[in-house]
């Protein structure tokens, strides 16, 4: 069957969302509980009932299995309980899968809900040890970064890419520090943001912070937090009957790329977005210069 590059263009829209605050740890809370809380917010925001949800998408088995979560949330009409397991790309893959199910007519309302509680009381020392072991054994470590002295640490591997970029292109630490400075500015009015209350930062602040992985400093490193985020997606023909303006999905692109940056057979890191953005732009009929803004995985 021939497929069109315009397959999903304009066929679906996001009509509601929910988001908890982002906090360092959330003792006493569970992944299920936070996902349910954000999910309930999204359903309410969309102006629909829990019984309208006929597809639930989560991080899947081993994280937040969608079947049990649907049961936990009291979503009694779920036909599809779908797990999205593409690591850091799971959220995007879930989004595209939801759009495909809606566009095919199999479902009407998809709830996506994702998060984590980081309850340090529940995550005991044994599990933390296990997590470290798994990370140390993760593919790529031994033949990629390993010989260069990097095993498991914050931003492992990224420091190498950073210094390579500085060497090859003359990029300076000051230039890249501006990314963190501008992002901190952007967050100052965002109520759920962890660092909103920490005030603005300067290039000197970034360069003067302690290294997490040379030349990357603490202020250029993402900090794990607890919280959850949900959205409701529906078909375009149903999208206008909700309290808030629908946001239509014009293009998507998904690609399994490589488990670790250093497993790519290229001298330079080529993030998967290089490929997926082309697919999304082609489907949408727009290009990079048409975009009013961009929100990248940082």
């Amino acid at each position, binding site marked *: 069957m021939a497929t069109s590059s315009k397959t999903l263009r304009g066929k679906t829209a*996001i009509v509601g*969302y929910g*988001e908890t605050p*982002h906090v*360092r740890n959330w003792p006493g809370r569970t*992944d299920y509980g936070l996902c349910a809380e954000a999910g309930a917010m999204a359903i309410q925001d969309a102006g629909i009932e829990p019984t309208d949800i006929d597809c639930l998408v989560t*991080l899947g088995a081993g*994280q937040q299995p969608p079947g049990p979560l649907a049961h936990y949330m009291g979503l009694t009409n779920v036909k599809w309980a779908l797990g*999205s397991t*593409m690591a*850091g790309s*799971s*959220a*995007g893959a*879930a989004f595209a899968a939801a759009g495909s199910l809606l566009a095919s007519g199999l479902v009407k309302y998809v709830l996506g809900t994702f*998060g*984590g509680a*980081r309850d340090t009381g529940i995550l005991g020392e044994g599990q933390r040890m296990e997590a470290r072991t798994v990370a140390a054994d993760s593919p790529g470590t031994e033949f990629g970064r390993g010989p260069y002295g990097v095993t498991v640490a914050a931003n492992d591997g990224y420091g190498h890419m950073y210094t390579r*970029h500085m060497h*090859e*292109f003359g*990029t*300076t630490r000051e*230039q*890249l520090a*501006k990314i*963190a400075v*501008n*992002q901190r*500015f*952007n*967050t100052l*009015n*965002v*109520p759920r*943001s962890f*660092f*909103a209350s920490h005030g603005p930062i300067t290039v000197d602040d970034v360069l003067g912070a302690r290294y997490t992985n040379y030349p990357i400093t603490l202020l250029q*490193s*993402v*900090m794990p*937090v607890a919280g*959850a*985020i949900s*959205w409701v997606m529906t078909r375009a023909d149903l999208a206008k009957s909700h309290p*808030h303006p629908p946001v239509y999905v*014009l293009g998507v692109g998904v690609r399994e790329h490589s488990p670790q940056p250093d497993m790519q057979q290229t001298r330079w890191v080529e993030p998967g977005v290089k490929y*997926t953005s082309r697919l*999304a732009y082609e489907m949408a009929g*727009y290009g*990079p210069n*048409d*975009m*009013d*803004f*961009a*929100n*990248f*995985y*940082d």
Partner: protein
Amino acid sequence: MRKGDIGPFMDSNDTTYKGNHPTNTNGGQLSMGQLNPGGASGCQQILETVRQLSGRAATDGEGGHQVEGAKLGIWNT
């Protein structure tokens, strides 16, 4: 923009939500923090894009963080 040009790009462009190249308009994971890296980590980019395109970033928090006139946006996870 050519490969490797991020340095000069950052020198001559403003990536704040008020600037000429608004990027990570809610502060990204650097500011929000990173949710469950098993995959929840990509969600805030999606939600922030929806907030911008529905105009709801204007009333999100005191003063908001709306990109003026935002009609088209892109995210990745």
